[in-house]
């Protein structure tokens, strides 16, 4: 039983890798589903902004308020903007945005493609002269890959604004001073690795959601399971990618 589980696990991992490979072999070939890609960008990117923005705002505010007491203990309260800024830009911003994104988009892609699979809509597309992989998977994976970094950037900005409000709850800092303190303590090695890893987060969410949906088993239960496992797996992958990213940046001495 144990061995069979492992076998299934590896089987699925291999299958998913092949699925991702199929994405790479197809995305640059015509025909290009431009309109559908933009539609997906709109749904995946723009429509996720309120959720990502809200969580980012709260994280910025809460992190600032939580860090203040310990910084006061060390007598470096004035470093609060710098510290929160680095935490948000390097780690909190990308990871929180990606997790929220996985919850919202990963599950919706999993459920949407799952139900399309179950109700033969994917077959219908193929019959209608459409490559469903390109039309459904490539557009969605590209959209998640490209939209998450944009969401992360906007989420960072909103988080920093939340942090600015958090600083001002028990102290007075002008917006300009806050801004200068944050930027003076940031470097390219803080922004770029975080920005680059958010592409991978987006890709992981897109590929996992599409894979789970595309290979959904018959029945409504299968659809639910696809959506659920898409969220779980993409959340885990986000943390694994985060781990790899920090090691890679460490190797390149960008830390």
């Amino acid at each position, binding site marked *: 039983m144990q061995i069979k589980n492992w076998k299934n696990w590896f089987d699925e991992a291999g299958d998913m890798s092949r699925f991702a490979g199929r994405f790479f072999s197809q995305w640059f070939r015509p025909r290009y589903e431009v309109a559908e890609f933009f539609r997906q960008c709109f749904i995946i*990117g*723009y429509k996720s902004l309120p959720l990502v923005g809200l969580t980012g705002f709260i994280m910025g505010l809460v992190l600032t308020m939580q860090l203040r007491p310990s910084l006061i203990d060390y007598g470096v309260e004035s470093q609060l903007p710098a510290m929160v800024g680095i935490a948000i830009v390097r780690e909190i911003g990308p990871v929180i945005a990606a997790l929220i994104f996985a919850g919202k988009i990963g599950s919706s892609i999993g459920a949407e493609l799952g139900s399309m699979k179950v109700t033969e809509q994917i077959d219908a597309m193929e019959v209608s002269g459409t490559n469903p992989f390109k039309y459904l998977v490539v557009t969605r994976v590209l959209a998640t890959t490209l939209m998450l970094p*944009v969401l992360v*950037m906007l989420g960072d*900005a909103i988080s920093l604004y939340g942090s600015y409000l958090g600083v001002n709850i028990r102290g007075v800092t002008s917006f300009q001073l806050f801004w200068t303190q944050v930027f003076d303590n940031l*470097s*390219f090695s803080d922004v770029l690795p975080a920005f680059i890893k958010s592409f991978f987060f987006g890709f992981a969410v897109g590929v996992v959601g599409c894979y789970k949906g595309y290979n959904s088993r018959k029945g409504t239960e299968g659809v639910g399971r696809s959506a659920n496992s898409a969220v779980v797996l993409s959340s885990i992958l986000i943390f694994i990618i985060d781990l790899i990213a920090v090691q890679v940046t460490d190797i390149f001495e960008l830390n």
Partner: protein
Amino acid sequence: MAKQTISNIKLGVFVITGLLFLILLLYMIGKNENLFGSTFRLRAQFGNVQGLTSGNNIRYAGIQVGTVKKVRILNDTLIEVVMLIETKMKDFIRKNAVVSIGTDGLMGNHVLNITPVAGTADLVGDNDILPVKKMESVDDMMQTLAKTNEDVAVIASQLKNTVLRINSSTAVWEILDDKTVPQHIRSSLINVRSATAKASRLISDLQLVLSDIRDGKGSLGAIITDSSFAQNLQAALLRINEVGADADTLAKTINSLTRQVQDDLDRGGGTANVLLKDSTFARNLRESILNIREGTDGFNEIMEAMKHSFLFRGYFRNLEKQKKANLLLKQ
């Protein structure tokens, strides 16, 4: 189709806003790291850069003017720091400006300080090498500071102890308050000195008498040549001699002591404190002064008694006669 265009606009705004923030972020960082805007290079050579690395800030008189481009080793004892400085600073930095490595705050990053120096010199050009000032590294400073702190702590605790003891000791305050003590000591010393002078004079007188007696002068020569009497007398003389010598050293010691006590009283501190720790000292001192006075008084009494003794009456009378004669001769 109208619906589609609206969502396109929203998507466009969304993406462009995100990218603008990224660009802003990168631009602000780049501005801090002097990636944009024109710069020129300056160099400085150190024996030890204390962990300065490329990207550290450079300040001219406290103003952010550039960043460290790179740190490279020229040879085993010389390390060169290449600086990127904003071009507009070419009008201000002179060739005699001194470069030093400091830290931003107590725990902050290393910074390179360019300090202007009084006196005229040409303005710097590209790739000039600026003179260097060795600064105490924060490490050394901290170590010294720690040691000093420890010493200060020890001293402070001892001082506190002393002060407490002085404060609680009434004897010391008595002595310190008593202005007559040094005077007493001085007068007693004068007494001691006069006593010793008297003693020495007495001894020389006695020697004279003895030689006279040995020579058989006087009516009582025969009696006095009694050997036992002579021996006793000799021992007494020796003892008297010793007393005189002791008194002499004692006088010296007490003399220096009084001077010190006087000094300490004038300055209100120093060894007097240590000396005066012993509360019994004052009493002893006073007693010993009294003793000395008593001793000298006793001596005088002995001398008087000797003068009136029948044995020496004649001798003293002669002596007085001689003195009178001398006086008459001098007159």
